[in-house]
């Protein structure tokens, strides 16, 4: 048979894209070189937030995606641990508080449920937080999901509508026709004939791109977290430091009063509880190629920063650390796009730390794009051609 679409990459993006295409009635094959959720989607944290997004398109897409998660949680029979825990961004200094207030005000004026809470309210919401914090941004609608269960949920629900999954399948070639259109994906398990290919391979998307002569500017950016032993509840929401914004949007330039170790490892405090009563403590991001070994100094820096905000962490054992690679794009926007030069070739990749959050909306947008329908948002900014333009003007 000839598939309508072959999706490459079975992470949070690829599984969602595959599911949404099946919903529209396309015949879909999903390929991965490993298992489902084998890469970044099982080496990340668990939240989907709007409170870490820049105002505008970024927030709009995040919000739509989070709403979509809520609907999927109701309709899917596969439980992906949807948890509307809300997010608190806490401020250490007056300067941070002022910037946070301005940010929250802007988001609220766009209609999003986000507001400042004072120091006392903060203590009531999170009694184990350090006592000297000035307050923070409260976003009640932010959620957490189990990232790899999201992938399995999309696959299981997709299978009900005919999705074919090919795990542990290695691609040797993407065959194009005489008029340069997608024709087949050649693998070690045989040829998969297909009218379209969607490259959802995340940090590995450049490897897939090279098979059709494309240079996709995605780089692996390492992220690392610590896991505690199961504990009594000490944290009720997702809690992050406002300085996290700094590591995410380098244009916002806060000076934090942190140790050289925390500075060197670019550590931004964030914490959440898990369903198994462990604590997930982050985080550090850095460029290390594909090396996902844990780094002792980074672990120490994460712990140090965690204890600054939750002093009781000092009494809790860390049992493990893990790292993954995030698909980083220099302008911090994902690529959700057709490729003009190759009919039938699409890219949905480069979400960096937002893949879990943007998974549902990316799947929905990509299905609309493939079906030739109008997209829910104007996604011109996410087009692959933006890089070609950048190169030409450079």
């Amino acid at each position: 048979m000839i598939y309508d679409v072959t999706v490459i990459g079975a992470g949070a993006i690829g599984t969602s894209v595959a599911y949404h295409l099946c919903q529209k009635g396309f015949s879909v094959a999903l390929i991965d070189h490993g298992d489902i959720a084998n890469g970044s989607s099982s080496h990340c944290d668990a939240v989907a937030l709007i409170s870490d997004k820049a105002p505008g398109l970024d927030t709009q897409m995040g919000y739509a995606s989070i709403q979509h998660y809520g609907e999927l949680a109701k309709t899917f029979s596969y439980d992906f641990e949807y948890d509307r825990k809300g997010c608190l961004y806490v401020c250490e200094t007056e300067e941070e508080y002022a910037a946070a207030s301005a940010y929250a005000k802007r988001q609220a004026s766009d209609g999003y449920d986000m507001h400042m809470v004072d120091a006392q309210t903060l203590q009531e919401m999170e009694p184990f937080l350090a006592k000297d914090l000035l307050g923070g941004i409260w976003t009640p609608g932010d959620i957490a999901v189990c990232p790899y269960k999201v992938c399995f949920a999309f696959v299981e629900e997709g299978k009900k509508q005919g999705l074919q999954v090919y795990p542990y399948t290695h691609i040797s070639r993407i065959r194009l026709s005489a008029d340069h259109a997608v024709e087949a994906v050649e693998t070690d398990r045989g040829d998969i004939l297909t009218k379209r290919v969607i490259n959802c391979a995340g940090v590995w998307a450049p490897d897939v791109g090279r098979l059709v002569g494309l240079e996709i500017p995605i780089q692996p950016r390492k992220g690392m977290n610590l896991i505690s032993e199961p504990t009594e509840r000490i944290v009720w929401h997702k809690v992050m430091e406002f300085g996290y914004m700094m590591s995410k949007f380098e244009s916002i330039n806060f000076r934090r009063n942190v140790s050289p170790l925390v500075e060197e490892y670019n550590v931004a405090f964030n914490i959440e509880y898990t369903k198994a009563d462990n604590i997930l403590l982050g985080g550090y991001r850095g460029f290390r190629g594909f090396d996902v070994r844990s780094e002792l100094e980074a672990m120490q820096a994460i712990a140090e920063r965690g204890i600054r905000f939750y002093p009781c962490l000092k009494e809790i054992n860390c049992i493990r650390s893990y790292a993954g690679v995030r698909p980083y794009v220099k302008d911090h926007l994902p690529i959700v796009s057709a490729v003009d030069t190759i009919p039938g070739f699409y890219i949905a990749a480069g979400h960096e730390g937002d893949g879990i959050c943007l998974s549902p909306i990316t799947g929905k947008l990509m299905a609309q794009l493939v079906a030739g329908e109008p997209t829910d948002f104007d996604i011109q900014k996410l087009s692959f051609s933006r890089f070609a333009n950048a190169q030409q003007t450079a």
Partner: protein
Amino acid sequence: MILEKDVVVVGAGPAGLAAAIEAAKAGAAVLLVDLNLKAGGQLFKQIHKFFGSRAHYSGTRGYDIGKKLVKEATESQVEIWLQSTAVGVFPGNKVSIERILQNGGKKLYTVHGKTIILATGASENVVRFKGWTRPGVMGAGAAQTMVNVDHVKPGQKIVMLGSGNVGLIVSYQLMQAGCDVVALVEAAPKIGGYAVHAAKIRRAGVPIFTKHTIVEALGDAEGKVSGAVIAEVDEKFQPIPGTEQTIPCDTITLAAGLKPVVELTRLMNCASAFEPVLGGFIPMHNQDMETSVQGIFVAGDATGVEEASVALEEGRIAGVAAAQALGLLSQEDAESQKQFYWNRVNSLRSGPFGEKRLAAKQDVLQCYQEQIHTPQPEVMIGGLASGAD
């Protein structure tokens, strides 16, 4: 603060002790860490006499070999930290060690080893059946530690699953400790271990159920084991319905083989190979017992489950090779020592069991030669790369 050592050896069983002794004798500053209260690893629960040649301590009981090695290590100026767990290895040859202090507290140390020898041994496989997590179901090795090291009986009426050497020897030792082994259950059509061990069990009148497996552990009111339901199995080792019978007991011990403990080599990105005969995934190594990562050596059961005597010889090779890598031994001297120990290892890998292991090990050495060839320096992770931003 980071401590500096020439060689950090993880695991003070026969392999780790031998490695530490050889490296220290060559003049290296050696730190040997082990999570247990005593050095010697499994040797201290081996109350039986060893077989083989005099070079391999034949006629000596395991715990006496252990004592001898610990004495030799201490005399060779090996620094031994007990109750010290290597909780991680990190880029830059750093080993994190959680040490229990005299006052009962814990302290985390980071030790930089110019070379690291991982001799982490093996862990027991489990068999899953209904009720397998009940109190009273345990590994045969755990039961052996209880009777031979801690002098505590794990229970009174024991059902042993598995008739390899571990299953046979531990059954016998449990009886010596005063337990009743009420059944020996084996899925294969005949007993797996040496005839000499099996004969002891037979003479003692232990009921032997070949072509059988345990399908359920029954529990009493508190949930503790009160019996084992066993059933006959077909050629595909599937239980045959209708053949179930219940054996009252308070303990079920599982002797289902061992697998190498490879977490630390995996953390160092050492290349691995899959060798079922040796227990599963093992780090690939060369004739120096060096992994794919330069300066990281392995020895003993962590490189494939064999016997204590093999572990000892592999440890000696790793210790000599590490000392050679540090420039403490001349090439000529090191090569002749390694060759001496290799000859002894190979003499141990004979007979029907040994030959299979020999073939598997040769496969590992050959794969190493083809795929890795020379150990690669570990890529140090430096400061934040600036390239992408």
